[in-house]
């Protein structure tokens, strides 16, 4: 990591210049413009750098369903808890899943009770665990968007090559463009443009949003994570609106190409098949998920490792769904900061480091 390079994208004068440009562009408009970001890292960055405090009142940033942990339904957590309670089983997960409340327990609680739950930074670490502990079952929690799915696909292929048969993935992978269509159809939200995700777009390519710009007439700008990126992305969106255009523009050309990462996309299509998926807050969305393909079913925990799972119960009063749709801000939820805190979260949005409520709680308004 080169410090001076990072600093360039956080340059105070550049940021001020961009904020002033945005203010000039929206001056005199009768209603504020609403732009949605659908990537948890954008959400965090916007809060962390206080970006909203730099924008004029004529621009509203809405956080959408960009946090993969947050959109994972409660039944998935219950199933992972059920696996954690099985003998001779290790649940391997990215850290964020640990504190997500299920219907009656969480992985963190199960760990405190003695379950073997390991935090890994890569699915390959989980495969290494499986190799080292051949007498145990390793259940890896595969949660994420198009960014994490290729590494998990690669890990499954590696397991097949090395004939490791005690490695399983509980897959809940999702793809982002389809729900963006549903949200842009929502008259209540009246989205004026999308800050399209950075990492996801590096995989799927900027062209993946073409249908939104052309069929839905929603301006799209693929945008990076640094403060100057985000403000430039907003400025590009405002310009499209002002000029009455809707097209896909790419602010993040240093990493995102129009067609994306061909190799990663090949991996995805070898190991996964498109499926219908349940999104917390949005419900069942056809074609918005990735299931493990039948050829690799032996690595699919859901198919190969039966377990009894309790009936899922959504927590009372939790408005995560409305937050994920961008209909309310975290501050509008009556549970926010009172019964729902990072220590005792009610909903997943308060847990994940990419969740809107966690960001709002940590960084304030």
């Amino acid at each position, binding site marked *: 990591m080169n410090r001076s390079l990072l600093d360039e994208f956080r340059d105070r004068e550049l940021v001020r210049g961009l904020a002033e440009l945005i203010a000039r562009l929206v001056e005199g408009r009768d209603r504020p413009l609403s732009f949605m970001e659908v990537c948890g890292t954008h959400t965090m960055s916007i809060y962390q750098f206080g*970006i909203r*405090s730099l924008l004029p009142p004529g621009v509203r940033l809405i956080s959408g369903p960009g946090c993969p942990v947050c959109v994972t339904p409660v039944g998935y957590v219950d199933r992972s808890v059920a696996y954690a309670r099985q003998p001779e089983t290790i649940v391997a997960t990215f850290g964020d899943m640990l504190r997500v409340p299920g219907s009656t327990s*969480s992985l963190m609680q199960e760990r405190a009770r003695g379950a073997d739950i390991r935090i890994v930074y890569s699915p390959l670490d989980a495969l290494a665990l499986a190799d080292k502990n051949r007498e145990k079952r390793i259940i890896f929690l595969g949660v994420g968007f198009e960014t994490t799915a290729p590494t998990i696909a690669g890990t499954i292929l590696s397991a097949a090559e090395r004939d490791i048969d005690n490695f399983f993935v509980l897959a809940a992978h999702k793809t982002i463009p389809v729900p963006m269509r549903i949200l842009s159809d929502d008259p209540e939200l009246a989205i004026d443009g999308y800050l399209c995700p950075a990492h996801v777009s590096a995989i799927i390519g900027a062209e993946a949003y073409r249908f939104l710009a052309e069929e839905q007439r929603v301006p799209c700008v693929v945008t990076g994570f640094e403060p100057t990126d985000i403000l430039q992305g907003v400025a590009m969106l405002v310009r499209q609106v002002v000029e009455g255009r809707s097209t896909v523009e790419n602010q993040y050309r240093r990493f995102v190409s129009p067609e994306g990462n061909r190799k990663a996309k090949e991996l995805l299509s070898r190991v996964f098949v498109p499926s219908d998926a349940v999104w917390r807050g949005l419900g069942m969305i056809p074609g918005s998920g990735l299931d493990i393909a039948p050829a690799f079913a032996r690595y699919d925990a859901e198919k190969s490792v039966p377990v009894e799972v309790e009936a899922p119960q959504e927590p009372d009063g939790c408005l995560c769904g409305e937050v994920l749709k961008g209909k309310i801000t975290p501050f509008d939820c009556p549970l926010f900061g009172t019964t729902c805190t990072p220590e005792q979260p009610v909903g997943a949005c308060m847990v994940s*480091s990419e969740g809107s409520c966690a960001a709002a*709680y940590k*960084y304030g308004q």
Partner: protein
Amino acid sequence: MDNDLILLGHGSGGRLSHQLLDELIIPTLSGIPASGQNDAAILEHDGRRLAFTTDSYVVDPIFFPGGNIGDLAINGTVNDLAMVGAQPVAVSVGLIMEEGFSRSELAEILRSMRQAADRAGIVIAAGDTKVVPRGKADRIFINTSGIGFFRHGLEIGGANARVGDKILINGTIGDHGIAVMAKREGLALETDILSDCAPLNGLVEGLLEEGAAIHVLRDPTRGGVATTLKEIAIQSDVTVTLDEASLPMKGAVRGVCAVLGLDPLYVANEGKVLVFAAPEAAERVLERMKGHPFGRDAAIIGEVTDGIGGKVRMETLVGGMRAVEMLSGEQLPRIC
């Protein structure tokens, strides 16, 4: 959810730790209100004031770049005494070892403890050794308790911050946490970051020459600078305003934090002190810090401003404004 369980986060030094202290530990053991919490207790006897503190060390791994569990255990307790303005005099050492632990590693840890004590100018005056069966502890845990005396009548504590105070730190943030983290198994990170583990009593003694201009001293260990400032803002009922651009930070620490998604404001330090000083004395305090080997990268990083009590806010690198909250849950367990 089951509220009977003690979770790792209860030992993080962040909000869960505070809850456990306020709801269970303090009311049961002593009943002293939380607002009186400082790094060390101050006891009065026959007109003399005595500082007394204790701390346990469970760091994993026990040897890390820039130190080990031994010098950490001495320096940590020395620093807790220094943070109330006391001059550390003596510590006790309790060793809890797992059956099968290495005698040569123990020898190395003990040598480090002795060196750290000599460097801080204190004696190791009492001790205890226990061994538990294999698997019932992780290699070695160390408890140290310490006492210190006062050479002055200054009132220093977390409740003494005043509007207008400047906030200083004696160097780069996050070094200890990242040095330990990078050494852990499973993270293929190669960095040259060393823990900042150091005794701060010498540096603090120099600052106390400024007398009543020094209002608060606190070492931002677990929970990092953010959690410590939030504690002080609550205890003193003031608003703290930080300037992100002035926070000293090594490029490598910033890089590792960016890669792992950690916020350096919450990463532990073991050789840093946050100082709240009267504005007219701030430049002199800064110069005194910079003149000490453990304060060369010292900086003024913020101030106490008018506003809502208990609030910490930060002007971000790019000029935005946001709130800073306490660490919640565990960022890095077993960091000290």
